[in-house]
């Protein structure tokens, strides 16, 4: 767990990541609040807050008496949201660091094109 942010946000993000990665396919049941709490060793109320955050945004929905399920279309929605945040979260810090080190835009582009080749 990252110390700087509320745990319930991190729980919500982790569930989102699992949906994006296809580990939690749409219309499948997600683990219960108590299961999340035991697994991450956190307070069940905190885990519940994280799950409820996703219910509020419509990513998860509740089947009464059964549990929480991944809503249809969730994956697509999450991917679209993440793409919008990508520039701010990843590209901008990359540019700041590159500028600090005197790496030019061309050099940076070359590095990106080389990509995973390392």
């Amino acid at each position, binding site marked *: 767990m990252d110390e*700087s942010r509320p*745990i319930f946000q991190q729980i919500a993000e982790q569930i989102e990541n699992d949906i994006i990665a296809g580990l939690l396919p749409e219309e499948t049941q997600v683990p219960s609040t*108590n299961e999340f*709490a035991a697994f991450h*060793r*956190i*307070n*069940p109320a905190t885990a519940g807050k994280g799950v409820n955050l996703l219910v509020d945004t419509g990513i998860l929905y509740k089947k009464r008496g059964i549990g929480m399920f991944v809503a249809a279309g969730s994956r697509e929605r999450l991917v679209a949201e993440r793409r919008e945040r990508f520039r701010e979260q990843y590209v901008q810090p990359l540019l700041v660091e590159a500028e600090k080190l005197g790496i030019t835009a061309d050099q940076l582009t070359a590095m990106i094109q080389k990509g995973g080749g390392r």
Partner: protein
Amino acid sequence: MTVVAEVQGLTKQFGKVHAVDDVSFTLTENRIYGLLGRNGAGKTTLMSLLTAQEFATRGTIRVFGENPVENAGVLARTAFIKESQRYPEDFRVKHVLSSAPWFFAGWDADFAAALVDDFRLPLDRRIKKLSRGQLSAVGVIVGLASRAPLTFFDEPYLGLDAVARQLFYDRLLTDYAEHPRTIVLSTHLIDEVSNLLEHVLVIDEGRILIDSDADTLRGAATTIAGTASAVDAFTRGREVLHRESIGGLASATVGALDAAGRRDASAAGLELAPVSLQQLIVRTTTSGEDLS
């Protein structure tokens, strides 16, 4: 939310010392609280007052809506495991466990037996022959298996090793999930328990400094570091909890930063670091500043 305990204007004096000084707060049903503070801050006195093991100098205490003093109905639903919990010395571990149902209305003997196995506690050994860690394990087992609707653990793990402490946290969480109740954990090991807590009370010199949701406190402070001039320029007009400097470098702990604040700090060449609950409490209780 149902209030389990309510304290108003509570003061406890020992001679001239105000161990608890005009304190007011409430504990609500089915939450895990952290009661945090330095040695001598008043944690144990506060818990002793709530469990009627000490008498208040001034102020009112209501536990389950009643005065707890000499109140068997209230005390049967309350457990207080002290740091140096005493048992009759000639008792064996099994005697402690078999007498527990006399004191705790909700005692679960099967759960206690399972915990004895988990902690590998020798049932037939006399209390006075137990190691410090084993004695703490007895307290932990009594506290958990009592399933008291209001349970206090005061530094319950003197001498317990890291494995046993983790076992305690795990059993506490799973049992709490199945049998919700109000639990107050008083501890110095803030980093170890911070994820278990839903609400935090910080006490210093007998007064409550912080009474807040644990998740609100997370990210409630950030440390920024860089050249002293950049740090000073950035902190101007902001609340500073703590400041350190070496030569031309400085670091300061400030209140929560929004996205714009973070960008400004990065643009000014400052490094940002999160502040853990433990660091936040160390900083609040050493400077004596009020974080409201």
